[in-house]
């Protein structure tokens, strides 16, 4: 019957679409190096002041054009709240929380990660152009949530 042939055809098309979409994602991950945060390290949020590298939040150079930015999120500011990096540098952010869950989102980039007490979030990004980006906590963290923002200055 015609309707059954159409039904089968439609399902075949949906399987092809599914395979094609997954293929695109395999390509993104294997050939284009798309990564998500994974296992890094665990910390005790009560002991951050004694736990390297979070005992010294801030940006430091680790190679010719590589930097490490260590950031602590606490209600309702990041430490540091203003991050300066040179244009063209590859920056690895190491972020954790001193209290509740926060977000770490640098507007205009793909840096968009969660910050969870007890866990360390790592994300790497190369800033190519000079300019300013908003740094925003985008996970609800209490009554002052919308005041938790800073900036990233690319010089």
């Amino acid at each position, binding site marked *: 019957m015609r309707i059954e042939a159409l039904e089968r055809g439609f399902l075949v098309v949906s399987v092809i679409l599914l395979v094609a979409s997954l293929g695109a994602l395999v390509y993104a991950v294997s050939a284009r190096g798309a990564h998500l945060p994974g296992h890094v390290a665990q910390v005790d949020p009560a002991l951050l002041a004694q736990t390297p590298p979070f005992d010294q939040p801030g940006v430091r150079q680790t190679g010719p054009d590589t930097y490490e930015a260590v950031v602590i999120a606490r209600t309702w500011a990041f430490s540091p709240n203003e991050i300066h990096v040179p244009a063209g540098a590859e920056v690895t952010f190491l972020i954790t929380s001193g209290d509740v869950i926060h977000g770490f989102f640098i507007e205009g980039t793909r840096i968009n990660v969660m910050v969870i007490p007890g866990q360390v979030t790592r994300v790497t990004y190369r800033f190519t152009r000079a300019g300013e980006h908003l740094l925003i906590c985008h996970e*609800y963290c209490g009554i002052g949530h919308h*005041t938790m923002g800073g900036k990233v200055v690319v010089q």
Partner: protein
Amino acid sequence: MSAPTVMNPAGFEVVETDRRLLRWTIYIGYAALVAGVFHGLAQALAYAKVDILQFFPGLRGYYQGLTAHGVANVLTFTFAFANGFLPLMTARALGRQLVRGLLWASFASLLIGNVLTIFAVTTNRASVLFTSYAPLQAHWTYYLGLALVVVSTWLAFANMAITLRAWRRDHRGARIPLLAHVSVASYGMWTLASIPVAVLFLGILLPWSLGLVAKTDPLLDRTLFWFTGHPIVYAWLLPAYVSWYCLIPRQVGGKLISDSLARLTFILFLLLSIPTGIHHQFTDPGISEAVKRVHLIMTFGVVIPSFATAFSILAALEMGGRARGGTGILGWIRALPWGDPSVAAQLLAMITFVFGGMTGLINASYSMNQVVHNTTWLPGHFHMTVGSAVALTFMGVAYWLIPYLTGRGLWSRGLALASSWLYTIGLLIFSRGMISAGLAGMPRRIFRVAATYDSPAWDLGGKLTAIGGTLMFFAIMMFFVDIGMTIAAGRRGAHPVDVPFAETLHAPATSGWQVKLDRLGWWVVVAIALIVIAYGPFLLTYVPRMVSPGYRLF
């Protein structure tokens, strides 16, 4: 040879006492829908920097209202409706009365759960948003209240399962009537899926909020939340699918083309809804990329039942449109009964859901998710799924269901039609605003009026959000007036006397693989196996770290 999707097509009535319980269960849902949208309006306007919070007496902050909006609209509304609708469909399909004790228990659990939750939220003791992320800590009444809402859904499911079991004992070897099969499969999926959140609320957060346990592990809690938190979207959606599959074909004068494809679709949702939750945690630390990829693949599997649904529903609609005299490639669309408010609302729900589905695939995509995660893109997306496919369908169902349950005719057909169209137009403007602002980096869940950062790139999107959200608010108020007046003053006797159940083109097969689609218990075992594959590696290797005391920062 076409076949009805119920046992006794000539007629069957649920006894009046039970109808009253089902009716009041559903009233709780619609009341929650209406109550929840007040702060929805405030949120939409806040994205255009218009602050109307001063007009909310007793409200102590934006996030208190945001919590109320989420809890009322996606938890109470959706589950109260399903608690009434799905058991009613099961009873009608099987031609069998429900278990009254369980109806009472489910209603009482829902009511008490809501009273506790409303107490906690309105007294600003639980401004933690519906996601309830620890270590933000709510009052114990909030966790217990929401757990009781979950328990009420289990009792509703138990009622359906017991009724089905009794029916099968009396009809050995017979195929389960389709309407009962899909209803039971829907809530069976949810019952299985809701166990992790029950463990989280009752086993972890409740003792923690009572001070019996000092600290908790935020990542584990979050993972348990999303373990249930993804399938929950299918628990909202599947009752709407029950209407689209088994009722709408009849309402438009068509038939469902394939009994087996319908059953297969619901079985696939039972299998694929749950082992996918970690795609909500793509940007979380502490969960390996390998686990995230397994969940990614399972998530994409949902494409199959979704496309099967698109095919089945469109075929039924086309058959109906052509039977009503529609011709040409698209002429059948015009010929559909757009003047029937129940049909119009659900057709509009289906149209907006196409966009909801497409944006959902983008969210689930591993790398694209990083662009949109926690921006207003997300509320833009889910208002086109739960906020339209589900909400608008449940409203459309109300236009026959409330008259059917009360014995009173719909108060105003015109108001109902106007409400559905206004809601859809508002929704499309709202979502366009949220999606574009989200792509420009506007974060969700912020009180933009008072934010210490801002961007001019968010202005247009914010304004569209406000305009669309305002239209949606007024549409819900129109729905409220129409349903309220129907209950209070609808014309007695002008109501539908039966559930508008559809027929399928062919009778269900009595041999072959299709018969196995009725072995629901067996499919639950397969679903559990998939869950073990998806969550086993993480849960077995993760060592909980109890590092977080409770914070009450609201």
